[in-house]
């Protein structure tokens, strides 16, 4: 038959290039993350014990907000320049297009943020083990945030100022991810649960979102055509 892997690679490469070039916004998420983490200790005060206790939660909230920040443009740019009209009728099903775009968004926008999160954790006086648990829980949980956000992005694709509406739509759906993420991340700093159980739930949430969200997002994009 034809060569879908080639088309997937071409789409991924294109997303990667757009994100990396000027105005692409790949670094917006990481910079926003840095700003949030940098100013919070000033607001809370120099109580290291307190910072260490709420540090994992702060990192998770910052990651959640940074993820949503870039996502509203995920399909809006394609809609505005007419690319979406063409993407509907390519050899790739629209569901795969959604999945590949999300994967590219995650690797360009979120992965750098996860990689630097142990560094930011130091600013919140997290102990060594907690640093790694936070990064690990972000690694397992942020795919779910991206995929859930993609549903919101595709629902608001034709709205010019859809960013806020998208956040309102998506934030309630991300609460389970946030709960299990923080509970896994704070296991090292005297959290309520051991690490493994919430971590596995987090993995399950991400897998379920990766499996289901492309269908929901593609359906919303098709509806938006009419």
């Amino acid at each position, binding site marked *: 038959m034809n060569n879908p892997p080639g*088309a997937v690679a071409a789409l991924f490469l294109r997303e990667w290039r*757009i994100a990396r070039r000027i*105005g*692409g916004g790949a670094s917006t998420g990481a910079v926003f993350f840095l700003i949030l983490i940098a100013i919070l200790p000033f607001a809370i005060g120099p109580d290291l014990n307190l910072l260490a206790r709420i540090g994992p939660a702060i990192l998770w909230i910052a990651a959640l907000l940074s993820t949503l920040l870039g996502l509203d443009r995920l399909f809006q740019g394609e809609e505005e*320049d007419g690319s979406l*009209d*063409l993407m*509907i009728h*390519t050899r790739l099903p629209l569901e795969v297009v959604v999945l590949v775009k999300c994967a590219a968004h995650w690797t360009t926008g979120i992965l750098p943020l996860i990689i630097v999160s142990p560094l930011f954790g130091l600013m919140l006086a997290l102990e060594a083990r907690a640093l790694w648990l936070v990064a690990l829980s972000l690694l397992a949980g942020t795919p779910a945030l991206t995929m859930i956000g993609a549903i919101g992005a595709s629902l608001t694709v034709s709205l010019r100022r859809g960013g806020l509406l998208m956040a309102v739509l998506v934030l309630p759906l991300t609460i389970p991810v946030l709960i299990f993420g923080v509970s896994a991340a704070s296991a090292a700093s005297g959290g309520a649960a051991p690490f493994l159980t919430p971590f596995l739930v987090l993995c399950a949430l991400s897998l379920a979102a990766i499996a289901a969200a492309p269908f929901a997002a593609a359906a919303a994009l098709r509806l938006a055509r009419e």
Partner: protein
Amino acid sequence: MRLSGAEVTIERGGRRLFCDLTFEAGAGEALTVAGPNGAGKSSLLRAIAGLLPVAAGAIVLKGGDDERNIGEQAHYLGHADALKGALTARENLDFWAALLRGDDKASPAAGAAAPMSALAALDRLGLAHIAGFPVHVLSAGQKRRVALARLLVAYRPLWLLDEPTSALDAAARTALTQMMRAHLAGGGLIVAATHAPLGLDGRQLRLGAAEPDEP
């Protein structure tokens, strides 16, 4: 291959653009859709591409690939150029070539032009020298020509062109006419909505002005 529409009715936002429109175009034929602004030319093209539902009637492409819908056998050139400003003209075209090119069994019928490389297609439209420039620095006419080059990098038998000549200069119009003639000679079909003459013989479809809704 034959594209035909039978008693097609299209509504947008509760307003009926036209009803019971019947049209037909065979292999190697061009159908030019004319009519005043708001007559429904673009909507007709979008409906053929499957981007807009028809309220009544049916549009079918006979003799094509039965496993694909019309949109998957058509190049749709809308008002927007579907180019990413941050990417170069060549990268844009390489991307669409990878996504739009069909499988080998459905590729060109005998006599049709084989898909070109991005550079060759840009050269056809006189843009070889700007292949490496990001699209956002190009002029409107140059962007339009890059969008037209997309039609050449992947073979699809049906071309749906919405105002293909907008922003084009005389030389580019000539190149476009040659492109379209070559496509028709290879057994392709073209449906074009336009105000300007395209230099093609073929059928004409005139859409009337939308009747004002009487209260």
